[in-house]
């Protein structure tokens, strides 16, 4: 217990320096600014803003990136509430009741509820991280190559099952991602693979190029081709503070959402998305009058918003403690950390505790800034939403171009990003999700390395995955998930859950 306090004190001493506070603030502001733009989710926002953080020191960069992430997440909720255009699946749930509240002239109350519920969830999740991450990293010290391999496979499969879209195609996308991740120099032998003599990818394909193309550009192309009619709720947003009745109904929902998010966020494949869906269906089931849902029920905003923020933050736990990202957003975080020479995992917590605790504390500060920043700035976000797409998209395209060029000063990267943009758009059209691909891309090299090491140690025998108890459990969980997916009953339920 005392250790936690001294650790948190260390964290505050790092996070509260003027410079890091500023990075946190800029991150939250930029994240919200881009995240508010309709049709742009946290993944796209983070990939677009990644290059800005590259030229900072690691602590500042990671604090800013985390800020961008919360900002983007919250910005997405704002868009969902105001114009019913969720940037990403996580805000889909918020749009259900939030938009209805906005149409009833209660946009202010919905936005404030979302902000307060998120803040509450953020506070709790920060404490959970402070306790759980060090504990988990101690467990991770027991892991050998077989366990890491099994855990990565479980994480990849779980991420696919718990996300929307066709499971078979998504598993395929993971494999495509791993293959793309293997391009360049092989870690074990130092040999070139699939580089085709292109010097720019001798090392490996640059992560920023992939992320910006697949999420940034592809998203713009899709948005341009689908004409959204954006109708802003008429009337001014004057009353921000929720009513007493809102608090009475919303608070328990937010508490339940937080608990759900903290639990589901840690699981492989978990995170914001699953948590918000789970919270919405829980609230609907618990409500005395479920018919209010979809017509502006405050619990439908407070619960899922708390859950998605708690889930989003809790997913930092496996990422930081094990070095294994449970979802695509965390894959982005890992890639960014690696670029700064910070390798998340059990050793990271022990050896770089100022950085780790600074990040944890700055998460809490970021959440605080979000509340303070967003409630007064609602008017500004509304005005941003009124900008026609014809003016918006060229700005975003330019930002991507300059950003990707600034990473290595290579024009090659700009062209390759264009290629990945086309690739990402085509994937979308043929019904394949890009998120599993990126997860595979980030985990690919490590997965191959651990897999090879496992079989080297076992002298080529695959039974090693089943004879070690920890790894056998993980393999069992993976098989169970796959079997569940094959059952028609479960599949139907999953479809219903995502349609709701």
């Amino acid at each position, binding site marked *: 217990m005392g250790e936690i306090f001294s650790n948190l004190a260390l964290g505050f001493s790092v996070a509260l320096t003027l410079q890091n506070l500023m990075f946190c603030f800029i991150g939250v502001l930029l994240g919200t600014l881009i995240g508010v733009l309709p049709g742009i989710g946290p993944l796209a926002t983070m990939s677009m803003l990644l290059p*800005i953080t590259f*030229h900072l020191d690691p602590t500042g960069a990671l604090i800013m990136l985390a800020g961008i992430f919360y900002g983007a997440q919250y910005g997405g909720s704002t868009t969902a509430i105001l114009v019913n255009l969720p940037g990403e699946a996580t805000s889909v749930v918020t749009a259900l009741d939030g938009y209805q509240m906005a149409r009833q002239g209660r946009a202010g109350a919905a936005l404030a509820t979302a902000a307060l519920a998120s803040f509450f969830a953020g506070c709790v999740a920060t404490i959970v991280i402070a306790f759980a991450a060090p504990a988990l990293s101690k467990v991770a010290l027991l892991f050998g190559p077989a366990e890491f391999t099994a855990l990565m496979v479980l994480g990849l499969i779980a991420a696919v099952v718990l996300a929307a879209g*066709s499971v*078979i*195609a998504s*598993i*395929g996308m993971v*494999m495509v991602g*791993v*293959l793309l991740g*293997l391009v360049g120099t092989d870690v*074990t*032998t130092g*040999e070139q*693979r*699939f580089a*085709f003599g292109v010097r720019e990818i001798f090392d490996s394909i640059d992560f920023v190029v992939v992320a910006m193309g697949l999420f940034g*550009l592809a998203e*713009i*192309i*899709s948005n*341009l*081709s*689908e004409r959204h009619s954006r109708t802003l709720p008429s009337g001014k947003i004057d009353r921000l503070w929720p009513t007493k009745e809102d608090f009475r109904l919303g608070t328990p929902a937010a508490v339940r959402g937080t608990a759900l998010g903290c639990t589901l966020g840690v699981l492989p494949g978990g995170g914001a998305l699953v948590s918000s869906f789970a919270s919405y269906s829980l609230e609907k089931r618990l409500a005395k009058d479920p018919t209010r849902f979809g017509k502006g029920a405050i619990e439908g905003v407070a619960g899922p918003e708390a859950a998605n923020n708690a889930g989003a933050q809790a997913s930092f736990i496996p990422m930081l403690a094990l070095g294994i990202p449970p979802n695509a957003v965390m894959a982005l975080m890992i890639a960014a950390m690696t670029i700064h020479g910070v390798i998340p995992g059990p050793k990271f917590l022990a050896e770089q505790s100022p950085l780790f605790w600074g990040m944890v504390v700055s998460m809490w500060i970021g959440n605080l800034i979000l509340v303070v920043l967003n409630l007064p700035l609602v008017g500004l976000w509304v005005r941003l939403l009124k900008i*026609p797409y*014809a*003016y918006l*998209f*060229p*700005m975003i*395209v*330019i*930002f*991507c*171009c*300059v950003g990707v*060029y*600034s990473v290595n*000063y290579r*024009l090659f990267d*700009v*062209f390759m*990003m*264009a290629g990945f*943009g*086309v690739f990402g*758009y*085509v*994937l979308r*059209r*043929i*019904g*394949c999700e890009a998120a599993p691909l990126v997860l595979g891309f980030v985990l690919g090299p490590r997965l191959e390395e651990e897999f*090879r090491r496992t*079989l*080297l140690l*076992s*002298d*080529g025998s*695959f039974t090693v995955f089943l004879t070690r108890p920890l790894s056998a459990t993980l393999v069992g969980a993976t098989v169970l998930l796959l079997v569940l997916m094959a059952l028609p009953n479960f599949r139907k339920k999953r479809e219903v859950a995502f349609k709701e």
Partner: protein
Amino acid sequence: MRLSQPLASAIFFFAFGALVLVTGRSLDMGTTAEMGTGYVPRLLAWGCLVVGALLAARAWWERRAPGEPVAFALRALVLVTAMVVAFGLLLPWLGLPVTVALTIVTTAVSGERYRWTPLLLIALGMAVLTTLLFSTALDLQIQVWPKWGG
């Protein structure tokens, strides 16, 4: 015949798996205990082929109700890609601000509704903003001024 989503994705996975197998044919397979550089890629390539086969089977299964056919918004696709490529081609000659402004003005052909005054203002604003942000504030080595006669 119109292409359904499962069929289109099946074709993609077949093509991708085959591409990996063909281009990686010279990679060393090794043994299971001591894997060569080609072991895991081949494993995954076969995985892609299996996924392709499963999706093709599903396309066949659902052939009576094929759902939404695959369609591409070529105009948006070409426009955005052209913008990025143009940016890459122009930057070494014209420097950052001019390239940014020119690229933005070309979006006038997007087919979206726009007016010239705001578009030009945005072009100008972005040119100044990106230059200030990336070249001045972050102090990156990006060429700012055009290369005359180069």
